[in-house]
């Protein structure tokens, strides 16, 4: 394929992915809207299970099937439920398709440029979108997170939309500072983190909404989990992302030492990476501080994501920094 064909193919794949994801978004939205069931009182609290008599109700043959008990105890009309589930499944399939298309777009971009596709902000952004989808789909292999789809597809589409409209640049050589294998290590870690941080911000935001509903005595949307479950998921995702982010920052420091002669120089990009790191460290602390575990911790998780986004868009575009290679 010639260079122009490669370029066209890469762009076409990115656009096709956006169209697919838009349909996925609609499917998830339908699923979300049809999930108006209430989560009924799920199970007696542990302390109520004290005698053999009351536990007998809950006996089941294997531990892994216990969730079936849960679904049965929830009310709601079956049609509603079926529509919801079906469209969620369609949403998931479309998300996979969108992911594959976007992967093709990113790879073709790399082939076209003859290097890793991380030379400017357009390329960072489409790869970050890929990272968001990738982390979500990876999690979906291990647990049922279809209900989260809407909140993943929306930020992905926003990222891609911004990429193709505002940030688009033709492929070009890497500026010399980016020619390093640390680029690959540092940026790939950061991109996976961008996916995980986005996922965690989505679950933390949902946890806030749910916990508000729960405080008002409602149980919120059934397709969305309880606030406590959402907070646990947020923690899981961030427990994975935090060491990786630490690693990304350290890799960046090693690279900076190699390129500029100092491993840390409080350049705005470095500063915001540090701020992001500190906020997420605070999140992990909040999880084990009395009075901070619930909504406050969720807010801290969202603040961490905000710092990450400020670093990505704000610093690249508005602040003059050694790291300004946005290409915009």
């Amino acid at each position: 394929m010639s260079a122009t064909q490669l370029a066209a193919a890469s762009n076409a794949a990115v656009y096709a992915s956006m169209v697919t994801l838009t349909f996925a978004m609609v499917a998830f939205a339908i699923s979300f809207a049809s999930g108006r069931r209430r989560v009924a009182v799920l199970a007696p609290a542990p302390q109520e299970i004290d005698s053999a008599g009351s536990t007998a109700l809950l006996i089941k043959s294997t531990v892994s099937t216990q969730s079936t008990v849960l679904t049965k105890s929830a009310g709601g009309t079956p049609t509603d439920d079926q529509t919801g589930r079906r469209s969620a499944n369609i949403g998931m399939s479309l998300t996979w398709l969108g992911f594959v298309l976007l992967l093709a777009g990113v790879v073709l971009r790399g082939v076209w440029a003859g290097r890793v596709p991380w030379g400017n902000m357009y390329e960072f952004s489409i790869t970050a979108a890929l990272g968001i989808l990738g982390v979500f789909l990876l999690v979906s292999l291990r647990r049922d997170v279809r209900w989260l789809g809407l909140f993943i597809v929306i930020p992905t589409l926003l990222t891609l939309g911004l990429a193709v409209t505002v940030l688009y640049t033709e492929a070009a050589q890497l500026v010399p500072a980016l020619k390093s294998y640390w680029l690959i290590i540092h940026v790939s870690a950061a991109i996976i983190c961008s996916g995980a941080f986005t996922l965690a911000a989505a679950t933390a935001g949902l946890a806030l909404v749910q916990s508000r509903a729960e405080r008002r005595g409602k149980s919120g949307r059934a397709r969305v989990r309880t606030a406590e479950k959402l907070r646990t998921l947020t923690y899981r995702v961030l427990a994975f992302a935090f060491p990786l982010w630490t690693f990304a920052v350290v890799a960046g420091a090693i690279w900076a030492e190699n390129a500029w002669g100092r491993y840390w120089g409080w350049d705005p990009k470095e500063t915001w990476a540090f701020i992001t790191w500190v906020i997420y460290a605070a999140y992990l602390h909040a999880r084990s501080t009395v009075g901070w575990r619930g909504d406050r911790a969720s807010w801290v998780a969202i603040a961490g994501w905000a710092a990450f986004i400020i670093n990505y868009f704000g610093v690249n575009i508005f602040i003059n920094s050694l790291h300004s290679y946005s290409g915009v």
Partner: protein
Amino acid sequence: MSKPELILPPMGALGFVRYTWRQLTSMKTALILLFLLAIASVPGSIFPQRGNNPLRVNEWIADSPTSGPIFDALGFFDVYSSPWFAAVYLLLFISLIGCVLPRTKVHWRAMFAPPPPAPRNLLRLPESMSFEVSASANEVLARGRKYLSGRRWRLLVAENSIAAEKGFLRETGNLLFHFSLILILVAIALGGLFGWKGNVIVRTGQGFSNTLTQYDAWGGGRFTGASRLSPFSFTLEKFNVEFDRGEAQRGSPKLFEADVTFRRLPGTEAENARIEVNTPLEIDGAKVFLVGHGYAPHFVVRNAGGEITFDDTVVFLPQDGNFTSTGVVKIPDSDPQLGFQGIFVPTAASNNLRGPISTFPGPDDPAVFMSAWRGDMGLDSGAPQSVYRLDTASMDQIGIVALRQGQIWKLPDGSGSIAFTGYQRWASFQIAYDPGKEVALLGAVLAITGLLLSLFIRRRRVWISATVNSEGVTVVQLAGLARIESADLPGELELIRDAVSDLPDTASATSTDEIRE
């Protein structure tokens, strides 16, 4: 029974100290200090910082004569060395030490303590199960013991129960992480106190030797003396640059590299090296980094009598991505003094010289725009003068002209001429020595290791009890408890159940536990 009453001892001085200490080392304080650290870091990314960009700081202050000095006094231009920033991180680290030391002691003890014995009613625990087996109680306990110790659980074996605990590495990892943070701080301090960093511009063909006087800018820690600089030297033989000529990112640098010859000690044999952006040259622990480059136009100045008063290349500093560069030529010995302000453009706009703006960073069509001044350039005032700036306060302008390479300008007042004969390239180097960086790296690696241990290892306890009921059947109870929510504990219990029961397939066994979801 009367209500219990809380009676506090009188506080006193010691009590106050103890109270303050306890507050300082509490989780809540750590959390607040972490937030403060995040917030305190922000201004440094908004205001220009002296350490990175002293020129921009000066401009900023000059542009806002009222607020500038106030912000300056508050340390907004030196955020990361300001007292308030230091206060936040020092408090945080004191809190950290005060928090981690006692925890280390507790953890040390816990590592050698036996796990707590089985509670009376195991089925009260959130994760538990109960089933009957045909083997004897002793047999069940022996199997359980074998299974658990094979998996490196810590055991306490009682008459008809086993208590087991695992996952101490979690707390070990957490402590390792926090200690590593201290190590990193020490490394930074080490670099700050014993390290140094200098910048120098070297023109092609010129040399540099590592002494203080040769640097354009130099900063060293408190314990770095000039005598500690290792006496190496190098010469910039050749400087290669290439710029992108494609449509997309026209003018962005594709490559730049400096070919140098260097000597580790005066008089030793010269070695060749190539310094590129991501490949510094390391000499004797110090690293030489290529950080920038630019043009040094060559001028020949003659006086009215035709004698050469100046004949050299002059470093011009780039002002934009296309290397529109500015610089000055000073002829202090002529009477009256003569000075030139110049703008060098590597690619002048074609045909008519539109103005002093370069359209491409490569030297496709170099030109200079010179403005000549005569008078007193203020060298006698004693104040140090920048070599890149001409103080024209007591000078008169005698003319402006654009010169192409090879052209000569006869000054309008007949006092001589200036010729633009060509140009050289220069490269700027940052030379840095940081004895703390290896320690910092070690700290970072340990911190990540500690984090991984601490976030992915779960500390958990399990208990097995085996008793014989009234019908003579062995009843086994299993229970587990995890410090943090753990999805795997039920699975772990199932494995233990399989290990202690008679058949590999235990479909007949019934288990009870809480419904999780």
